[in-house]
């Protein structure tokens, strides 16, 4: 049955989308930066997993951790060296800066790995249970579980740890947090590094299931943006909710007669406009008009 398979696909896609948007939502919510390089970071995560898999014959699941560590370091440096220098500028400046970083990262990846489409194929890829015409693959389920675990972990980290609280406090009021003895530079660097690490995890997971290529980052960024608008800013759970809703649209809209595939950006944009008109605070989050 088409619908049953679509439902299973949706659960995988929705959770993966949540992973795509998680770090983006954190960076936006805390620093008010729409990180246009987020997609490039996801792509970088995918290539880290590819190198781990091809060169070091490492299974893609542990490679998620490696991608997170690498991207954490990259994110820290980027924030410390570049973004901290424009953090008080009008939003268009940070917007342009992250766009420049996106171009730079994408082009460097392309120079190094070439522009071809790559993929990671494990021996166990696609093995799973089949009910009638509905197939559930184990690796898909594992990825979905990891995506949800990342959401839980981020939520606990922000809510329960001292460092997490410092991040939240900085997000609410930078000057007040600074007066409380929190180092803004370091907190921002940590926030961006965590956001980048989550992007790396998303990239490493996506790499197992979908072919990827260097210039794909832009569409990931647009997707993350729409998901955050759908879910709302403020909590990791909002990103999960937004990801599930977006996955729903992407899975089922092409099934509508006379529409068909190919309209990914158009769907994303249409949803964006609908949400901004009818529920400007997203599904779970806070209002973002200030």
């Amino acid at each position, binding site marked *: 049955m088409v619908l049953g398979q679509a439902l299973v696909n949706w659960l995988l896609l929705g959770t993966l989308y949540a992973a795509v948007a998680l770090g983006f939502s954190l960076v936006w919510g805390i620093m008010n930066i*729409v990180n246009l390089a987020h997609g490039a970071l996801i792509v970088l995560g995918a290539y880290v997993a590819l190198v781990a898999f091809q060169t070091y014959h490492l299974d893609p699941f542990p490679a998620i951790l490696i991608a997170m560590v690498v991207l954490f370091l990259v994110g820290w440096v980027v924030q410390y060296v*570049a973004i*901290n*220098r*424009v*953090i*008080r*500028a*009008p*939003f*268009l*400046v*940070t*917007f*342009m*800066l992250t*766009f*420049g*970083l*996106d*171009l*730079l*990262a*994408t*082009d*460097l990846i*392309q*120079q190094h790995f070439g522009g071809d489409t790559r993929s990671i194929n494990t021996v166990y890829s696609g093995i799973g249970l089949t009910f009638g015409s509905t197939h559930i693959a184990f690796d898909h389920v594992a990825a979905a579980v990891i995506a949800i675990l990342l959401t839980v972990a981020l939520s606990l980290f922000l809510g329960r740890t001292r460092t997490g609280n410092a991040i939240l406090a900085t997000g609410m009021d930078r000057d007040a947090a600074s007066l409380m003895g929190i180092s*803004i*530079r370091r907190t*921002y660097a940590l926030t961006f590094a965590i956001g980048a690490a989550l992007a790396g995890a998303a990239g490493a997971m996506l790499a197992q299931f979908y072919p990827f290529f260097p210039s794909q980052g*832009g569409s990931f960024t*647009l997707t993350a*943006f729409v998901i955050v*608008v759908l879910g709302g800013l403020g909590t990791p759970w909002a990103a999960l909710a937004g990801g599930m809703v977006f996955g729903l649209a992407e899975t089922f809209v092409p099934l509508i007669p006379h529409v068909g595939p*190919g*309209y*990914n*950006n*158009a769907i*994303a*944009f*249409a949803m*964006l*406009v609908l949400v*901004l*008109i009818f529920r400007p605070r997203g599904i779970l989050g806070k209002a*973002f*008009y200030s």
Partner: protein
Amino acid sequence: MGTDLDLQTPPATKAPSPVPRASRSWLWSLLIGLGILGLIGMVPLTGDISDLHTWTLILMFCVLAQSWNFIGGFTGYAAFGNVAFFGIGAYSVAILLNDHQPFWLGLIVGALIAGLFAFLLGLPVLRLKGHYFAIATLGVAEALREFSAIQNIGGPGGEVSVPFPGAGAYPTLFYVFFFAFLALALACLIITILLTRSKFGYALVAIRENEQAAEALGIATYRYKIAAFVLSAIPTGLAGGLYAYFASGFDPPTVFDVGISVEMVLLTFLGGAGTILGPVIGAIIFEYGSFQLLTSGFSAHNTLLGLAIVIITIFLPQGLVRLVEALFYKPAPGAVRTNRLREGVRRVRRFIAANGI
């Protein structure tokens, strides 16, 4: 920006305070702008067709940046989808030419459709602010690209070729395109100067500086924003139409390329957003350098573009024109003139590292 807005001397009052002097900086901007465009106008004298080709495209980017400046620089609304108007202009010309209509008709129709599209699009998206406006406009341009590819607008996959005039007209036509873009750039320069001296211009700057306060002072912000968006769409549509004929064919990824939107923003920023000359200067410096690198066989164009963006946004977020203004600032009445150089240098240093923590 402020210094670009001309202030005429008010009639003498009984007040003892010094009456503000009339600022003539717009006149300087006009003269410098005319000088720059006049110098570019001499390029055809070299007789080198490839130079002519390069400068035609540089002028095109001048026009694109100048028209982005209306919505992005003066009004402060970060439109990231203005390439949509470019594409609309290009498709209008291509479709009408292929339908054996005259070129000028396509150009006018394209500009009108671009303006109308900006109006209709502005109705919903100009209610959004900041990032939301930026991404919404970006999304529209992307959606148009997908639409023209999937619906086979103009040809299979959206690819169109435009009938190029006979071989006899070949070199002459390049001159025509060059001067058409030059005229368009000149028109944009004059519109910009008129804007800075008008009530409309004050409304846009007030909206950029503080929309809530602007509204409270009686400015119908929504209408002015839509007007600025339309004003920025029309020259962009004209440039797209000229480009379509000039390039004698294109496909959706070329004329709806997000990169063009980004270059509009970047060029304006490099020169100085919301200034009269900023977009012209930014476009000439960046695009000329970019073409030089391309012809010298440098392949990593995007690395360069990315690096340029990073450096400009960190160190020159207000652009070259304002940097020069900061260096040659006007001292406050009564200030000691000998400190002027030191003060200028201090301002420039503060200017460069303005936004960090």
